[in-house]
């Protein structure tokens, strides 16, 4: 039985290498300079790239950070440093609830809040949807890292006459910054691959999307549309896009963990 459990663990972990292996095998050959610089080619023509989707994803993630990071960060400061009791419980509960909401439902929410009133799909709506998903992840982990800062530091700063907000800004947040950075990076990586909330907010686009108010292509949605389409050339592109996306996400994850493991002031939670 002991070996059986080992086999289970091996099977579970090997999935990661299968996923990576297949992506490199099928997608590796299609990644070239064109992939990063050209627009998608029309059906039937080979070549072309996914430059618009890469730029679209970058724009969406930028918007998402504008929504998710401030709310998560300052909300966490409130939870960890200012509040106690009922309010904190309610906020935490709401964040956990938001974290558990299926991503497709977040899409519906962003649709009825941003797309429906303005009557068109837009980059803004997509960024908003992704930002919503970043909030609970950033909030809860930032709070944990702030709490992990030893109380002695707080007391020392206050004993020197610093006011509370000064203590937070100059002592506590700097002490926990590796953890906070990790939290934000992980939230970023999590939403970078989200597809479902973008389907009816950012929609998709075969061309460049100037400004913020037009539908935009994004890597995850491109992978979806290209994978289920019947064209071989699109399948090739989907594999390549998958490889790029997964590579990006795994690198962010590894970097985030590396930042955390080098930290001294904050123990790993």
């Amino acid at each position: 039985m002991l070996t059986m459990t080992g086999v289970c663990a091996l099977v579970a972990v090997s999935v990661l290498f299968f996923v990576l292996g297949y992506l490199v095998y099928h997608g590796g050959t299609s990644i070239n300079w064109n992939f990063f610089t050209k627009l998608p080619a029309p059906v039937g023509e080979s070549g072309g790239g996914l430059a618009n989707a890469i730029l679209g994803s970058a724009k969406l993630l930028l918007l998402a950070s504008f929504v998710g990071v401030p709310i998560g960060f300052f909300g966490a400061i409130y939870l960890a440093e200012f509040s106690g009791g009922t309010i904190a419980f309610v906020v935490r509960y709401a964040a956990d609830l938001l974290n558990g909401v299926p991503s497709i439902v977040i899409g519906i929410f962003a649709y009825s809040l941003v797309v429906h009133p303005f009557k068109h799909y837009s980059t803004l709506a997509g960024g908003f949807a992704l930002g919503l998903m970043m909030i609970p992840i950033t909030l809860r982990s930032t709070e944990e890292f702030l709490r992990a800062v030893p109380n002695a530091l707080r007391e020392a700063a206050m004993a020197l006459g610093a006011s509370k907000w000064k203590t937070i800004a100059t002592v506590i947040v700097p002490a926990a910054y590796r953890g906070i950075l990790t939290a934000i990076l992980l939230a970023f990586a999590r939403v970078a691959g989200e597809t479902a909330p973008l389907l009816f907010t950012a929609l998709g686009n075969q061309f460049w999307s100037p400004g913020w108010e037009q539908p935009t292509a994004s890597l995850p949605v491109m992978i979806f549309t290209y994978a289920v389409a019947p064209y071989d050339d699109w399948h090739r592109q989907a594999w390549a896009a998958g490889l790029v996306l997964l590579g990006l996400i795994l690198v962010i994850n590894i970097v985030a963990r590396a930042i955390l493991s080098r930290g001294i002031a904050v123990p790993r939670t």
Partner: protein
Amino acid sequence: MATTTSTVPSAGPVAGSRSFLSRLREGDEIARIITSLFAASVVLITLLLVFELWQGSVLPRHKFGFNFFRTSVWDPIFDQFGALPFIYGTVVTAAVSLLIAVPLGIGAAIFLAELAPARVSDALEFFIDLLAAVPSVIYGLLGVFIVIPLMRQYIQPALKHSFGFLPLFQGPAYGVGFLTAGIVLAIMVIPYIISVSREVLLSVPRDQREAALSLGATRWESTWKVVVPFARTGIFGSIFLALARALGETMAVTMVIGNTPVISTSLFSPGYSIAAVIANEFTEATGDLYTQSLIELGLVLFLLTFILNGVARLLIVATSQRGSGLG
């Protein structure tokens, strides 16, 4: 944070207490108010989400009532919407995925928490965390191009050959369908089961193991008969968490389930799930009733995951408290 000093709020002459004013001057009260606004916005967003889902599904709730969940006709042309095939598909695929993921996940968690040396365990846990970070559309991609052909050519014919007398494994092998969706979902939820179960198993107090070993139990007996039962509620919690994920999972399921609103006893049959129908039809839905019916499906999905996540959290907290209380 530096800006907080320069902004003087129009708080007005609230309560003439001097301490409040002095705190205000030092900036503490301002910082508290500003950060509390950010925290409050989280609650506000969540409430708004529930409100929008409820408000957005008024028409079908009034028109169909409970028949929405009992009928299986989904006909946008004649404005008839019954969600039964989607609910069936969601439940069946989630059930299949748990049947595969629970034994594998818990087995792996036992190995990581109890048997593997700490270094190996940490290294493997690192890979498991990375696995949990793989986006669902990537699993869908592999599902479409790797799992579906595999199912069609080898696994489904083999199952049919050996278990074909069961109604579960009958009918033509399309490749797509409930079974394929269940397998892909299983692969996706295993990391969650492993991570949470491992944490729960690690929180079992050491003396439990030592007591069992000192009574002459083998390593496996102490693990299986003492440690696992002790962590039972937390492990159930991880399963509920995985179930909530499986029910709400959209992209991978949409890509491999076949997208046909059919209720069939055969796992080989193509089907549909709640999340998949929303993903496929939401942008094309014409007319308020159609759109709102899809939103009502979203509401159902939300309520299901809300309940399951709540139960999961209670179970996990109960176990870790038990662990710390006795240990």
